[in-house]
């Protein structure tokens, strides 16, 4: 829908968009272009020589077992975070939608973790699982499980998944709650009159109607797991033990800034860009139909 009424000026709009365009050009397009450019170069990290190597960086990446492993790790991590996060939040949202008293208080109490920085969330969970004084670690050990996230890859992965999910619960919860509240009550009442139990009503009516929200949250959670969780990994496991929790974004950081492999890191960035763009396009295409202007 287009506005029909406009102001006439030949210079004012340019002045108005100038600040935004300046920032976007300098700090977005120029670096993004640089990343694309660097990904087809091989650079001496100390600025000695650069040579054009075409696809070589990409080829090297795809035959590098640690990069492919990182892909697998990231995929595994995102699926875990998304599925666990969505299930828990959906359960909480459904319950919050049902209760007749105290809904506001529950809501406030459940959304504050959004304010917690991922880095801080990582530190908190690390503390609970740290040996020897970590409360949860002690509890697990008393059950016979020898918890050691510094040595055991699976434990390390569990730790970062827990921290990541904990932080996302509020976000998912809010969206699910909003989604649930926009379902017309008349539909549910009609089903109740027909004798459907709450369980049945949920799975045949509510859940399908919630699917746009669910899909949207799925994409958001995957993007979150891909990128915002860098801080969690850096604060807790540093990609370890070995490389078992080195998610893709962590590898980009490590290769670029610690291992000084500029070409490889740039190529990885480009691949990540491709993934994000694909995810965003998918989400936009699917959700766009829902957007309406007054």
């Amino acid at each position, binding site marked *: 829908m287009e506005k029909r009424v406009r102001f006439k000026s030949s210079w004012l*709009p340019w002045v108005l968009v100038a600040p935004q365009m300046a*920032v976007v050009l300098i700090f977005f397009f120029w670096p993004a272009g640089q990343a694309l450019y660097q990904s087809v170069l091989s650079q001496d990290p100390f600025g000695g020589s650069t040579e054009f190597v075409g696809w070589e960086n990409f080829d090297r990446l795809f035959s590098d077992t640690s990069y492919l492993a990182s892909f697998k790790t990231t995929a595994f991590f995102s699926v875990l975070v998304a599925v666990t996060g969505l299930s828990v939040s959906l359960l909480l949202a459904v319950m919050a939608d049902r209760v007749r008293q105290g809904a506001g208080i529950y809501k406030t109490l459940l959304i504050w973790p959004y304010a*917690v920085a991922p880095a801080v969330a990582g530190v908190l969970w690390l503390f609970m699982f740290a040996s020897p004084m970590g409360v949860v670690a002690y509890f697990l050990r008393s059950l016979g499980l020898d918890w050691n996230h510094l040595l055991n890859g699976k434990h390390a992965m569990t730790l970062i998944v827990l921290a990541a999910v904990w932080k996302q619960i509020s976000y998912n919860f809010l969206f699910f709650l909003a989604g649930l509240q926009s379902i017309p009550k008349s539909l549910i009442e009609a089903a109740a009159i027909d004798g459907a139990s709450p369980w049945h009503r949920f799975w045949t009516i509510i859940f399908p109607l919630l699917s746009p929200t669910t899909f949207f949250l799925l994409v958001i959670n995957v993007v979150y797991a891909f990128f915002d969780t860098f801080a969690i990994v850096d604060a807790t496991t540093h990609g370890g033990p070995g490389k078992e929790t080195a998610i893709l974004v962590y590898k980009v950081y490590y290769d670029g800034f610690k291992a000084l492999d500029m070409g490889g890191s740039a190529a990885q*960035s480009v691949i990540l860009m491709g993934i994000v763009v694909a995810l965003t396009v998918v989400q936009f295409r699917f959700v766009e139909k829902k957007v309406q202007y007054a």
Partner: protein
Amino acid sequence: MIERRPGLQILSHVVLLIGVAVVAFPLYLTLVASTQTAEQISRSIPMSMLPGTHMLETYQLALFGGKTSAGGNIPGALSMMRISLISALIISIGKIAISLLSAFALVYFRFPFRNTLFWMIFITLMLPVEVRISPTYAVVSNLGLLNTYAGLTVPLIASATATFLLRQFFLTVPDELVEAARIDGAGPMRFFKDILLPLSATNIAALFVIQFIYGWNQYLWPLLVTTNEDMYPVVLGIKRLISGEAYTEWNVVMATSILAMLPPAMVVILMQKWFVKGLVDTEK
């Protein structure tokens, strides 16, 4: 909800209470740990879950720094919190300001390349800063902006979430208002200041909450852009406390964590209505 099912009501409350407890548990532990001393924490296995008596000293240590009983040196968190505050404010206010201007231009004017500019801005939504760290770092470094507030904040203003949201909102403002303003002889900036801005107040508040939290919680970007520890935001400072020494002063770490969580949490709770609106609207 529809029928009276007391059993289900009780179940719902139970589930919610468990949820709240699980969510709050790490926070509770953090609080408790910040009231004990480092020796108490490392010596008792597991850490005692009851509040200790050393709250004031621990927080004093965390805020202002100093020497600890184990001989470690703690940099105070107060200056880091100031850095976080200033960065978060610059990011949120800066982003909102330039977005108001460009959204206004994009919706209310017709000029060549308008659509191209809009798509350029839209693309920035797709790539978070984590995807372009190396080259953005190079740009910031070349501009001499390392270890400055500008370097910390401006690259994060580049993404257009606010512009997009404001544009969506402006499109819903009735044309009649613009016409009325024109009939009264008001120019575009008059209209912007006297009519559009007041109408956008709730959206601006919502954006402010989200962007403030976003700016405060930044980790990767400050990690790269600051080499000088004096410019560390508090979120980064916490990490430094863990990895620095062989002996981690957990009580100080936990106290600093609480301090780091406080401002965003207050913003969320005090501005909850706008926060929810901001989240739900930003993603449409």
